[in-house]
């Protein structure tokens, strides 16, 4: 076999790298243009427009229920549509379903792995999904029979090549959306376990996702270690929008069209692990790594309240479906509902 002509190859390589350099320049120019355009649209600050809005009064929010039972850090929780039941998962491998109103435990499942980082309640209230270091998302139908072993009916739905960071049912029990440390999100058919759509675009671990709240919505947002928050179209798998903000990982996300305001304070130096909005969108609750919850006035950008109670990081926070309370899970092994 004749050896390839060396000079030709060298020229080819030079050509390739030239094209790559060209493309990079083009890409950088476009990025610059995009920033310019966005800056033009940034004609005013949200809190300036909101000056005429009436301020919120004093809030008296406190822990109304404390749920004890996990043997290790609580990593995730989700509400049932009945507004009182919740499911929670922990580093100890357990997934527990509680009636948070009475604080009774109703079901418990032991997962084959530790660090169960994601859990979700099905819209019907008849099943829960969970996963973590096992790289999978499994669905467990909830039986009314207390003696029945839930693990027996387990259905393995999603398979990723790295840890499962978040999962969520869409409007039905039949589809699940997952995000993973392998940098992708995916939509699955629960019944068959088939992959319906995959979402590629993050350059690193995806840590969280959130679905657009409307019935007709077909989009969701995901945030990751690449400091990007991407908005996706569930039907096509395309990334519709991308936000590059923050200094570091995006641990949690809530649907938005653009970055309109930043909520920060000099005295808050620890990161936020989880966020959620109140029903009207006027309040933003953030669970922080300094064990507290900060409540923000979304329009005015001011901190309305700081809540103490947890004895270690707050790892998860969600407002209940009817907005009457929010629940937090913490590394102190407990969950608390606040109102």
């Amino acid at each position: 076999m004749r050896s390839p002509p060396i000079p030709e190859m060298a020229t080819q390589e030079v050509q390739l790298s030239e094209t790559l350099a060209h493309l990079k320049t083009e890409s950088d120019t476009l990025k610059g243009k995009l920033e310019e355009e966005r800056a033009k649209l940034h004609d005013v600050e949200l809190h300036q427009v909101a000056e005429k809005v009436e301020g919120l009064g004093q809030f008296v929010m406190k822990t109304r229920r404390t749920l004890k039972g996990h043997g290790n850090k609580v990593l995730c929780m989700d509400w049932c549509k009945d507004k009182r039941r919740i499911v929670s998962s922990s580093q100890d491998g357990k997934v527990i379903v509680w009636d948070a109103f009475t604080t009774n435990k109703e079901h418990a499942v032991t997962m084959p792995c530790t660090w169960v980082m994601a859990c979700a309640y099905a819209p019907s209230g008849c099943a829960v999904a969970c996963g973590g270091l096992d790289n999978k998302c499994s669905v467990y139908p909830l039986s009314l029979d207390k003696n029945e072993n839930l693990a027996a009916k387990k259905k393995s739905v999603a398979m990723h090549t790295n840890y499962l960071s978040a999962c969520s049912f869409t409007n039905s029990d039949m589809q699940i959306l997952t995000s993973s440390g392998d940098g992708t999100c995916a939509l699955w058919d629960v019944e068959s376990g088939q992959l319906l759509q995959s979402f590629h675009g993050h350059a690193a671990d995806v840590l969280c996702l959130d679905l657009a709240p409307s019935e007709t919505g077909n989009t969701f947002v995901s945030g990751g270690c690449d400091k990007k928050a991407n908005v996706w179209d569930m039907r096509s798998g395309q990334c519709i929008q991308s936000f590059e903000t923050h200094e570091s990982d995006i641990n949690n996300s809530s649907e938005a069209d653009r970055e309109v305001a930043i909520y920060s304070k000099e005295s808050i130096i620890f990161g936020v692990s989880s966020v959620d909005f109140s029903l009207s969108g006027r309040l933003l609750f953030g669970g922080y790594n300094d064990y507290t919850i900060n409540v923000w006035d979304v329009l005015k950008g001011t901190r309305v309240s700081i809540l103490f109670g947890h004895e270690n990081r707050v790892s998860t926070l969600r407002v209940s479906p009817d907005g009457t309370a929010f629940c937090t899970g913490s590394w102190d092994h407990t969950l608390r509902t606040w109102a």
Partner: protein
Amino acid sequence: MAEGSRDHGGAGTTTDPEEDSPNMIVYRKIEDIVTRIQDEKAGGVAIRTVKSFLSKIPSVVSGADIVQWLMKNLSAEDPAEAIHLGSLIAAHGYIFPISDHVLTLKDDGTLYRFQSPYFWPSNCWEPENTDYAIYLCKRTMQNKARLELADYEAENLARLQRAFARKWEFIFMQAEAQVKIDRKKDKAERKILDSQERAFWDVHRPVPGCVNTTEMDIRKCRREKNPHRVKKSVYGVPDEGQSQPSPVHSSSQPTRKPTKEDVQKEISFLNIQLDRHCMKVSKVADSLMSYTEQFMDYDPFVSATEPTNPWISDDASFWDVEASRDPSQQRVKKWGFSLEEALKDPAGRDQFLKFLESEFSSENLRFWLAVQDLKRRPLQDVSARAQEIWTEFLAEGAPSSINLDSHSYERTSQNLKDPGRYSYEDAQEHIFKLMKSDSYARFLRSNIYQDLLLARKKFLSQQDDYWHSTTLKHLLSIHGYQIIKALDLSAMCPRLIARFLLLHYDLLSAKHKVEPRLMLYV
């Protein structure tokens, strides 16, 4: 997408990717605070030597001073927040009480010292048990009251002696060597160094019951660039490779250089973004403000609920009321906000459907609902269901034929060649717009909706309650109890009684002569 080569505005000097890690960012912030506190000339606290009993305590500051500084310089609104923040700074090992293993900040005369940068957490210490053993061993060798082991430390030492039984001689020798080195130091300096060393171990081997702030979120562990790097020893003991591997997952995505395809994808994405219609912030702000204003009445955190919030009152009636298909005025008002809101509420959906049925135009809504249902089906059912929808709503001579423009119709029939969950997206959107602009507006003006909104019927029926019962009694007195006997009328609502009367009017009129006036009123 491959990460751009952009400089992160301002900070730009660090090239170490580790600096981006969330922990590092927090550490740098704390270090900035701690540096500022110690800078007396720049408004920091005074670090002094305090005379106590028989000796002097070098280089200390009171807890109260620290709290005050935090409040002033970090705009903490109240002492509680400052104390909390200070306690966290202590828990991470940047400041420590000189006479306690528990790392919290107290707002009083308790004395604190600052940790040496050598021991800062940002140096990524992961001290081995061999180091800890050397440390505890060393403490027992020094005959000073202040260096006595606490109970939990004595227990730890005993455990380590058992675990390292074979190499205990080596550990002992290392401890002796450390003691020799320490003896050479100045007395005051030794006090300070000893306390800093102790504080270091209070972070890495905390008192039982205290939070271990060195615990890491396992998702962040993976990002260590060199997970198997040689861990440096606190006492310069060479690593014998005995370290247990921490639960680190090797990255499945090795960072690779962006290829041509990557950049091309990025370019097309950026072009789409540029073409995308974006709103001005002022407009976004306005729409956000009107949205929140509209829904604030429905937000239990902002407006008190009626009946009271179950979580606060321990009374679940609020949920019982919400679950009933008998909607409150406030809930009915929400249906008027938008078609989406009306359809979100099952009661709203029912009423809208009822209205449309009365106009014989319910096929649009039924189509919309059917398509929603289709999207929620398991994959295996989708194809069949899609066909059913076609037959019911779109095929020639369909029983519930909907009106689609020819373009949507064409596209939909094309989609159905390979039926999927989104085959009817176009059609559904079109029908939704139709309903929104036409029947929804009329629904809001309709009697069905207005009655509910203004709670008219309820009011009327309360009045009629009395009337119907008297009429019934009158009827009964004239016509006998044969029909009525079997039913418990006290349990019937007035509406039902009225209907009952209507139904049995024939019977009554046939049997006995009843005034027609009665029937008209009902």
